[in-house]
């Protein structure tokens, strides 16, 4: 080019393809040949994949032009998809159009008639050499080889330029391959000049509400990934035996919509006020927030929703079928409620005088006030459920029911208490825990001034111990053969019992009761932990050291060792299948549920069991399957971007002071107390991560650098025509709702 006019080159590429570096490489190659050069790109808000232009000027004299190149001598096209009509219209005559294309020059006749065209399959060469990926190939150095060949630049000069810029290896071999394989041709026809329409349109003013944000850039076919939305199962929902939409009602409380929260709960459980008080809350054990600070206090929130939401108007039965439910514990109540809501006439049979089963007989009033129990039972009955209390049914009665009703559900709970032989036969000093609780409730038994030992580690043990205090016991102790942290009772209840002054002896097993003296003595054995047993816990074994046996004086002993089913009501030879349906009967379908069938031992499991029975019965009677569809995978903790949330301690509900409550059956826990400055239930509900379920937090929308997220009825949608697949939305979604899929 000695003494020739300045040459100007325009490079058309996409962000990430290395167009500006290619300009620099061409300029450097000429610079090393002693030329004045200039290389620059047109910079925008940097977007990978966005169309961009870079320019090179080469001259023998100092270059004083700093404008963008308008009429290039040559055009280099790094990505064929950028070829639009008129792309080369402003090009000077006899220049080269050098295209990254697997096809021969002639195949580009449409846009470059009458021009000199060179093509090289730079993408294949670059990908083969490991320069970028097929989706995002870095073709700049490869293209430089083709450019050198077309410009009659010795390949060694180009390689010197590369070396100057510290490009070697694959870049150099790719350039050489392109140098050798570029095809050139002068296309037939005449150069057609297409006037490119200027894009200067009306500019919206700063005060124009439609000014909007960033200008959108159409991504067309070059995005390699796209964001999609999914719904995962929140771990709390997954962990709820009753099947509650836990996340849903917590979100509603967070929005102060207690009616909606209660409505969500009543979809699956008629006893939210009870569960909000006595549930061991497996949802809280499952809560992902416990991986971050503390689980959300779901139980207190449920209680708040049940106590503050308005109950909806009950429906009346509209179907013809009558269904019998035996047992008015949580399973029977749940089945009755769901059957009634499905339109069935329900007759509910209860052996006791009042409804409620274990809710009434087994849970002391200081944990579950009778008005709460009454309120929820009454709501169930308002659905047209006919209750028959004081109606203890025998096996024969049950069989009779199967001929009178369209279906029968038996949920008679646990009635046989487990016991151990403490020697000396039936001592007057020994009670069964469940009987004791019943007597406290009905006959107002007193233990004034007495010393009481409770044996066991479950909820009944804790309930019996705390009730004993409340009926006047002077001194209450619990002995448990395993360790404190292995007690199956609800953690909080254990702590409350200790706070009330009950002493718990762990790793102690009773041997016998010496009831012959003036005062009974319980002879005890210290235990230690051995190998794991079938439950996966270390087996307690007797400590063999000398002083491992000791005596505890007392006035009475309460056994709380658990209960078992009394299956005498069932027809002989019947078999529980699928946890529910009973086989081998001639009459109407008979189902069993609750602790009676499953012995899971919690109110929530019984509620779930009752609901399942109702759905079974409905399917049997109507053919309609209302069972929940198989749910999505559980949102594991690693799906949650926890650091986005600020650390916040769990809010506990209020509680009566230990000293004030230990002699009273007034409810110990008072729940969340609002004041003008604080709504603890709402604040606590807002701690929920909403794992795996979009709650329209707008974070994806706010962080999308392209502004291609749109709000719609389902939350958000993506404008894929403008989405570049950067994945910022998926990274920023705190709850694992957005994921990237390969295109």
């Amino acid at each position, binding site marked *: 080019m000695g003494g020739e006019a300045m040459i100007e080159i325009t490079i058309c590429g996409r962000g990430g393809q290395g167009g500006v570096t290619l300009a*620099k490489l061409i300029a450097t190659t000429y610079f090393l040949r002693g030329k004045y050069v200039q290389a620059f*790109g047109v*910079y925008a808000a940097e977007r990978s994949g966005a169309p961009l232009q870079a320019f090179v000027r080469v001259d023998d004299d100092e270059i004083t032009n*700093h*404008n963008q190149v308008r009429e290039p001598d040559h055009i280099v096209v790094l990505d064929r998809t950028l070829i639009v009509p008129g792309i080369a219209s402003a090009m000077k005559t006899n220049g080269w159009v050098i295209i990254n294309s697997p096809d021969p020059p002639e195949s580009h006749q449409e846009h470059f008639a009458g021009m000199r065209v060179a093509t090289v399959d730079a993408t294949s060469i670059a990908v083969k050499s490991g320069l970028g990926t097929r989706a995002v190939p870095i073709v700049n150095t490869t293209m430089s080889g083709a450019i050198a060949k077309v410009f009659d630049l010795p390949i060694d000069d180009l390689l010197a330029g590369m070396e100057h810029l510290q490009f070697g290896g694959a870049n150099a071999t790719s350039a050489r391959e392109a140098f050798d394989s570029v095809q050139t041709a002068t296309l037939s026809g005449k150069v057609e000049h297409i006037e490119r329409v200027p894009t*200067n349109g009306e500019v919206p003013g700063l005060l124009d509400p439609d000014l909007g944000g960033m200008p959108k850039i159409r991504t067309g076919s070059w995005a390699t990934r796209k964001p999609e939305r999914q719904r995962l199962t929140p771990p709390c929902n997954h962990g709820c035996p009753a099947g509650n939409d836990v996340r849903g009602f917590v979100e509603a409380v967070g929005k102060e919509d207690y009616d909606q929260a209660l409505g969500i709960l009543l979809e699956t459980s008629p006893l939210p006020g009870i569960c909000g008080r006595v549930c061991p809350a497996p949802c809280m054990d499952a809560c992902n927030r416990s991986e971050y600070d503390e689980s959300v206090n779901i139980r207190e929130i449920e209680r708040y929703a049940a106590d503050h939401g308005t109950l909806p108007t009950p429906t009346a039965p509209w179907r013809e079928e009558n269904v019998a439910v035996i047992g008015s514990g949580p399973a029977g109540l749940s089945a009755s409620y769901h059957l009634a809501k499905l339109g069935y006439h329900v007759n509910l049979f209860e052996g006791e005088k009042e409804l409620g089963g274990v809710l009434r007989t087994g849970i002391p009033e200081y944990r579950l006030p009778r008005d709460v129990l009454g309120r929820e039972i009454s709501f169930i009955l308002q659905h047209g459920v006919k209750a028959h209390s004081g109606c203890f049914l025998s096996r024969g009665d049950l069989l009779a029911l199967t001929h009178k009703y369209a279906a029968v559900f038996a949920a008679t709970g646990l009635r046989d208490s487990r016991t151990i032989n403490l020697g000396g036969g039936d001592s007057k000093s020994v009670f069964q825990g469940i009987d004791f609780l019943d007597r406290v409730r009905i006959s107002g038994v007193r233990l004034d001034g007495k010393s009481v030992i409770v044996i066991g580690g479950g909820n009944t043990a804790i309930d019996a111990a705390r009730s004993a205090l409340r009926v006047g016991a002077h001194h209450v102790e619990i002995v448990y053969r395993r360790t404190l942290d292995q007690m199956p009772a609800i953690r909080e209840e254990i702590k409350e019992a200790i706070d009330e002054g009950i002493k718990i002896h762990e790793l102690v097993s009773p041997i016998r009761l010496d009831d012959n003296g003036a005062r009974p003595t319980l002879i005890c054995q210290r235990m230690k932990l051995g190998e794991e047993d079938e439950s996966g816990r270390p087996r307690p074994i007797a400590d063999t050291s000398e002083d491992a046996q000791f005596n505890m004086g007392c006035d009475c002993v309460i056994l709380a060792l658990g209960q078992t089913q009394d299956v005498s009501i069932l027809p002989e030879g019947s078999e529980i299948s699928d946890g529910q349906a009973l086989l081998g009967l001639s009459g109407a379908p008979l189902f069993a549920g609750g602790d009676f069938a499953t012995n899971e031992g919690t109110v929530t499991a019984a509620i779930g069991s009752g609901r399942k029975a109702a759905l079974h019965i409905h399917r049997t009677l109507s053919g309609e399957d209302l069972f929940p569809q198989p749910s999505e995978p559980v949102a594991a903790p690693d799906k949650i971007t926890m650091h986005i949330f600020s650390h916040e301690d769990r809010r506990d509900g209020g509680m009566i002071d230990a000293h004030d409550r230990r002699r009273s059956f007034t409810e110990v826990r008072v729940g969340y107390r609002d004041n003008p400055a604080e709504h603890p239930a709402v604040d606590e509900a807002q701690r929920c991560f909403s794992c795996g379920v979009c709650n329209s937090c707008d974070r994806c929308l706010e962080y999308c650098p392209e502004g291609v997220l749109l709000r719609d009825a389902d939350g958000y949608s993506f404008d894929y025509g403008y989405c570049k697949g950067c994945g910022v939305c998926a990274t920023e979604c705190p709850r694992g709702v957005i994921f990237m899929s390969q295109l």
Partner: protein
Amino acid sequence: MARELVTGNHAAGNALALAGEANRNARGCCAGAYPITPQTEIIEYLRAFEFSKGSVIAVESEHSAMGVCIGASLAGGRSFTASSSNGLAYMVENVYAAGYYRLPIVMIAVNRTLGPPWNIWVDQGDSLMLRDAPWLQFYCDSHQDLVDTILLSFRVAEDPRVMLPALVAMDGFVTSHTQMVVNLPEQEKVDAFLPKCNVPHRLRHDHPTTVGGLTWPRETEHHRIEIQQAMDRVPEVLTEAIAEFQEVFGRKPAGTLVAEQTEDADTVIVACNTMARTLKNVIAERRAKGERIGMIRAKMFRPFPRSDFAAAIGSAKRVGVLDRNHSPGSGGIFWQEIATTLRGRSDVLLQDYLVGLGGGDVTPTVINEIIDDLVKRKESSEPVWKEVAA
């Protein structure tokens, strides 16, 4: 000298580093650094440079970056930094402090439009926002001008007759991100050109004092007068520095302004930075067609060289100013300054053109249209907006 192909940012970073390193046998150098587009490469260059005596401290904001420079300079070190646009705006309080403390800090301003709405492209509004700060200001049209002016700035700013900070501006992207051929000086020559940095009022262990305490109006007035007097001495100091620069580097950098073909010109156009390079090409073409037209490249903005402008304009009848900046409610800032220069000259038609704001590409065509408008004029008007296509 090494002839190299580098970006404007690289060239600026190199010049700053050479100047910092040149003080290694005195109290060293220290810079506060905070990145912003399009200046970031300068910060990267400085952070990667291994100074024999000194350091570049990464801070959390531009305000702190200038804070570091103030501290370093008060400790007697050679100090420098760089910023752009809204970053410069955030720095302003300490920018003024640096000047009123009389600290010879050198700052590169890579000109970028002030937002919002966000805009990363060139516009001189950011550095001209500092026109009332006690700082020298220089505007550079090329990579070479940039390197030379940075070295000159240290020399002039640190001169005991001046002792004021200096700002050196270049066009964002058009200069900062463009690869151009430039001669980068050797360290020994920079060592020879720049004397040891001596801040006479630097803080000393052996003579503990405080700086910047309360002063009464009378003292404040006096200090302002001192600053004006220091500004008044800049042209003389600059001229001396250029002469020595030429002796050391064998090349003569531009002074307060560059007048081209103004001697017999009826029409004179004023512009700065790369726009002046485009203008120069246009002037050459029009001269070739017989037009009596010349141009002035404005280089030093503070102190504003009124007498040099008056001399360069000479007997021209029309002066057009290309302002890539906008003072809302008034017009272009270079135009305002030239209007004060031409006070009393009722024979000159002075017209302002606001052009290339927000980074529009000011092509020869655009400049020709402006000149066509100017030469047809019988009288001047309010500043004219010359919009540029995208």
